[in-house]
């Protein structure tokens, strides 16, 4: 026999582990030599399909039979608007093209590998809790420049460019250092939501000033209802949004601009401290500690059951809760209240933006197809169809005409109108995902009483400074 065991099983686990550890130690320095080139995989260019002939019907020059893959975030708006409205529109325009549809809740988890491998889908709805970092995508040249789309003639009126069919601010919202990369499609208004029915039954009225607001919260609490709440487990950004909106009202819109531009000490501005102090008090006195462990659907369900009175969110809320909303609930929006009479912005001011981001992958097989898909989305028919399915207004001006919105969206549209010019937005969360994460964490710490406003601004500022110094992060300005 070639090898008879001299000492059967003499090699016990201890010996083996020790030797294995030794091998590990020895192997480490030499390991760099071994490495093949995994990292080169990302460079591999995808074979892109040739363009088709440009025509009046096909101004972008899409290849007629080239397939297009559409990935939709299956969240508040669902996926039906894509399968029932936009994808059929594309198919109608290009009957020979195959439209591959896919929906997911965890965009980054499932798409990141596709991007890393140089095989991204053409069209992506990048949204939700696990959205991909827009800033990183832009920095890596993964996103198709949308200038061509905005300058193309619109579907409905060839004399009109696409850029002239959308509400002002739409293109800017999706621009990075002045270049448009993202289509924010849904007109979104942020505020604090309540049940019109609950308020009417109890004789409560939405608050405009901070004193009114505290009085309102107190009387709600007296009724045995949790006055205010957000979901700490996955939706803390709903609350930092409230704090920052409040800060912008106190100190003017430059407060937010400084944050977005990573200005030194931006988070330590007095307006932010004031707002954080005020909301920490709300968290301590008028909320429920258990909400920190709940997901947004849980807290939203509680509001539908009249257990929570006020809930901060965007106006997708009403559509998202459709199944659980009892009849007569009557969603209503109130803007974040004013702090005092010395506020820079009036009580009606609010944060509104084009929301729900869509992009075309520059390195996909058929980027022109992706652009054309967007052009179809931005047609009157596409926008109207979207609004009918999800009950939310789009950025397409003609899309909402003559549509009667459900009460919640109607109230947010009215609030938007009332705000007039005093509408603002913020961008840092899309530009610097890490800063968003830190703001969420700090917000939970603040609202559930573990740190005060000073510590709150201190720690986010620290993160902002670190990002500013980090050379691997691409910076953006507005």
């Amino acid at each position, binding site marked *: *026999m*070639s090898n008879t065991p001299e000492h059967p099983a003499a090699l016990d*686990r*201890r010996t083996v*582990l*020790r030797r*294995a*550890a030794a091998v*590990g*130690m020895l192997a*480490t320095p030499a*390991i*760099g030599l*071994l*490495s*093949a080139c*995994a*990292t*080169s995989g*990302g*460079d591999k260019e995808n074979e892109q399909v040739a363009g088709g002939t440009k025509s009046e019907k096909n101004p972008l020059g899409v290849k007629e039979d080239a397939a297009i893959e559409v990935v939709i975030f299956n969240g508040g708006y669902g996926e039906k608007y894509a399968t029932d409205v936009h994808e059929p529109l594309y198919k109608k325009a290009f009957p020979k093209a195959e439209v591959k549809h896919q929906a997911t809740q965890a965009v*980054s*988890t499932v798409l*990141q590998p596709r*991007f*890393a491998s140089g095989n991204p889908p053409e069209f992506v709805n990048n949204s939700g809790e*696990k959205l*991909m*970092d827009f800033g*990183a*995508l832009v*920095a*890596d*040249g*993964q996103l198709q420049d949308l200038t061509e789309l905005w300058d193309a003639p619109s579907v409905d009126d060839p004399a009109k460019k696409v850029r002239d069919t959308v509400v002002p601010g739409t293109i800017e919202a999706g621009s990075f250092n002045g270049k448009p990369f993202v289509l924010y499609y849904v007109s979104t208004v942020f505020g604090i939501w309540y049940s019109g029915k609950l308020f009417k039954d109890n004789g409560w009225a939405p608050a405009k000033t901070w004193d009114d607001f505290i009085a309102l919260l107190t009387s709600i609490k007296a009724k045995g209802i949790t006055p205010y709440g957000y979901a*700490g*487990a*996955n939706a*803390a950004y709903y609350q930092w949004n409230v704090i920052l909106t409040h800060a912008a009202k106190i100190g003017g819109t430059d407060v937010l601009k400084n944050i977005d531009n990573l200005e030194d000490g931006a988070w330590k501005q007095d307006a932010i401290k004031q707002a954080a102090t005020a909301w920490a008090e709300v968290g301590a006195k008028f909320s429920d*500690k*258990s*909400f*920190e*462990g*709940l997901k947004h659907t849980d807290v939203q369900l509680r509001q539908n059951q009249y257990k929570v009175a006020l809930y901060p969110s965007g106006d997708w809320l009403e559509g998202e809760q459709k199944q659980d909303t009892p009849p007569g609930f009557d969603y209503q929006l109130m803007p974040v209240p004013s702090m005092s009479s010395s506020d820079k912005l009036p009580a009606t001011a609010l944060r509104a933006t084009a929301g729900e981001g869509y992009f075309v992958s520059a390195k996909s097989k058929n980027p022109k197809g992706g652009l054309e898909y967007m052009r179809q989305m931005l047609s009157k028919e596409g926008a109207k169809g979207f609004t009918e399915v999800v009950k939310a207004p789009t950025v397409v001006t003609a899309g909402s005409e003559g549509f009667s919105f459900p009460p919640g969206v109607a109230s947010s549209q009215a609030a938007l109108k009332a705000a007039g010019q005093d509408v603002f937005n913020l961008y840092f969360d899309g530009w610097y*995902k*890490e800063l968003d*994460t830190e703001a*969420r*964490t*700090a917000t*939970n*710490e603040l609202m*559930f009483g*573990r740190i005060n406003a000073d510590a709150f601004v201190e720690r986010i500022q620290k993160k902002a400074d670190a990002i500013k110094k*980090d*050379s*691997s992060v691409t910076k953006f300005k507005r």
Partner: protein
Amino acid sequence: MRHGKYPFVIGFLIVPVALYVTFVIAPYAQAFQISMTNWRGLSAPRWVGFDNYRRLLDDGTFWKAVQHHGVLLLALPLITIAIALFFAFLLNVGGKASGGQRQGVWGSRFYRVVFFFPQVLAVAIIAVLFQTVYRPDESGLINGVLMKIGLDPVLFLIRPNLALWSIIGVLVWQAVGFYVVLFSAGMASIPGEIYEAAEMDGASRVTLFFRVTLPLLWDTLQVAWVYLGIAAFDAFAVVAVLSIDQGGPDGATTVLAVEIYRNAFTYQKYGYASAMGVALFFLTLTFAALTLRLTKRESVEY
């Protein structure tokens, strides 16, 4: 007889070695390389030397994660082994000795089967299960009871000092059965004469346990410690699925695997994530080396 040995040896080794080198060794090697770059997964990586490692030193979350591994490394083996030893002792020698057979307590077979069961479930599934067990309101399994009898709910995953222990609880829940069976095997091999002799001297159950069972099980305990130590360095699935905000609140439950995942797949900082991976690798190695050294103690021969 030696004729044709080498073709045979090569023929038998070629497929397994090729598979292993391609899918295991090569990726590990590349991870070291990537950790020296600022690669974000999309365009070509740029060599940055030890920048990522320097940044690690200043990263509070990283150190929090390392600290949690320290806690896990102590608590998980200690708690699990203590409970499992206790149960194994009960199941094997806890009952009365009759007819020459030392017996476990009544129903010991049933208990062994039940205790072991969580071991066959996937951790990801167990984590989903415990999400509902720990829920902070009346819909949670535990808090539902507490609130029904008029107590305040326990905020298992929310209170920063409790969250990590809630996670450890799940890990212990799954692990105990395995070690009960493992220790039972060890105990069953301890000759009955030894117990008998000890009992003749009037030793109580407790004395039996500490003077007889424990020393004779030393080898098995060592193995258990190593296994649980390795488990303490992972804990990804349970933290990622169970904790609020993946490792929260405010990093109170985070572990290196979760931070690696977050940096790689949320921030797309592959270089930085790989540096964390390398750090984790050296921590594991250090643990292995330390354990081997510390437990170097003569086992009792019998």
